[in-house]
């Protein structure tokens, strides 16, 4: 478990982090969201022991990183934002060097390299120079570097930035697979990705945590109104009008017809038990209810709502 408590960091007059506290429990995949300059990267640099906070502390399994930096660094694999690699080396030499620094003995090192070649798909590029690699392969080598010592904690700063959709899908799959046994904290700009891969989200803005929770919960909590997709069949004369008359409903709109089913979008107040009321109405009128699907608000809305305005430099 990673516990960060009251982290504060200033860069000169700029406050990068302001009293940031959060936990990442073992086995969680946590997504770190926020606009550029919100403090994601700074937080990650502190968690990995590169930067020292002005105030506050980071504990991993109860151990303070300031007291036992080496012991904690051994358990963490880190992929920084821009994937910095020693570009004057060959890929195989580079991974060998990382293995040595990670304290792996010759035989362990060979096994570890074979393993990451497999997990990260590095076949065929091992003899190439790091500087010759494409963006996608650089990213894979960066990940391989983070995974080489089989750490239980992974910290990934925008692992899919700059990749094409196929590569993004690959990395996402890899993260999902790794997430089954490892604790992962990753930052991203791509909100659908966060929703898909992460069990929990931390949204940071202006150096402060502004939201913390499961993606669907966060969105539901934030949404001001409930949106229902209703699909009906049968004699539907006046259905739109009648649904609009239900207490709490603000607006009804037909969105698509086509086949025998007509679909409506019903916007209602958040608190009214609107699904039940629509169901009851349909039963009363003898409509065949073929679809009744609440649509959550979008993460985009939530994100924009929370990270608008002051705070971001």
């Amino acid at each position, binding site marked *: 478990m990673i516990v960060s408590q009251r982290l504060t960091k200033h860069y000169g007059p700029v406050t990068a982090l302001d009293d940031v506290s959060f936990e990442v429990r073992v086995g969680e995949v946590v997504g770190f969201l926020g606009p550029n300059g919100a403090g994601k990267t700074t937080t990650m640099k502190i968690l990995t022991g590169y930067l020292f906070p002005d105030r506050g502390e980071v504990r991993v399994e109860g151990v303070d990183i300031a007291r036992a930096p*080496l012991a904690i660094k051994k358990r963490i694999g880190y992929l920084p934002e821009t994937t910095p690699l020693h570009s*004057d080396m060959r890929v195989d030499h580079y991974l060998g*060097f990382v293995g040595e*620094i990670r304290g792996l003995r010759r035989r362990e090192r060979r096994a570890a390299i074979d393993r990451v070649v497999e997990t990260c798909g590095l076949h065929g590029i091992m003899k190439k120079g790091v500087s010759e690699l494409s963006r996608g392969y650089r990213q894979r080598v960066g990940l391989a570097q983070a995974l080489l010592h089989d750490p239980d904690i992974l910290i990934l700063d925008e692992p899919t930035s700059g990749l094409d959709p196929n590569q993004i899908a690959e990395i996402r799959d890899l993260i999902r697979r790794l997430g089954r046994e490892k604790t992962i904290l990753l930052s991203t700009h791509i909100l659908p990705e966060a929703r898909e891969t992460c069990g929990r989200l931390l949204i940071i803005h202006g150096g402060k945590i502004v939201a913390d929770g499961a993606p669907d919960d966060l969105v539901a909590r934030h949404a001001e109104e409930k949106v229902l997709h209703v699909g009906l069949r049968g004699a539907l004369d006046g259905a739109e009008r009648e649904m609009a008359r239900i207490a709490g409903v603000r607006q009804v709109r037909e969105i698509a017809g086509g086949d025998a089913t007509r679909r409506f979008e019903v916007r209602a107040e958040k608190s009214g038990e609107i699904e039940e009321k629509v169901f009851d109405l349909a039963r009363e009128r003898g409509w065949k209810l073929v679809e009744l699907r609440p649509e959550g608000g979008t993460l985009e809305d939530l994100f924009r709502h929370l990270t608008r305005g002051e705070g971001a430099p």
Partner: protein
Amino acid sequence: MRNLLAVAKREFRAYFDSPIAYVLLVASVAFWSFWFFRDFFLQGQATLRSFFGLLPWTFLFLGAVLTMRLWAEERRLGTEELLFTWPVRPGEVVLGKFVAALALLVLTLALSLPLPITVSALGPLDWGPVVAGYVGAVLLGAACLSVGLFLSSLTENQIVAAILTLVVLFALLVVGLPIVVAQSPPALTPVLEYVGFKTHFDSAVRGVLDARDVLYYVVCVAIFLRLNAVALAWRRWR
């Protein structure tokens, strides 16, 4: 210790992955030989004085070129960040880089060994000052490299690092020379003579390997390597 060696090995290999090492080896040996043999046959004396007299000035360039990349490039690429999230002590990395640079310098010096060997084949060479001179050269070289390594950690531009190193090393070499000492207040004379890089080397070349001169270089290296570690840590605190 293992980390130190891992870093040293990586850096040493990196010299040979680019043309730097080869160019440097060939250029140094060619330059030394040319300079040495130009006077040698005219003077007709079996001594390496002229070679050792030249050496500190070539160390200006060697010190700058061998160290300019070591931290500046690490910073430019951003690998410094990754490096310090690995389980290594900053001191181990500093020492590792220093050892790699020193190893290449020693290798370069070793390639000049045909000079004394040729001389001793031609005349009665006194090996005492030669051995002392080489030991002094390694010490002086180590000091130059520690200065360059430190200065390289202050910038992300290799060229800036190299020029800074050239300037600082030039100042340190010149400071103890009679020309400078004579121009400054007499009270400063012992200080300038002590601080100057070249003074301690010159006594080695005369065949006197004084423990105080050895200590001078060792302390100097220790100070600059420590400054290097401090500069790195300071960036992470800021």
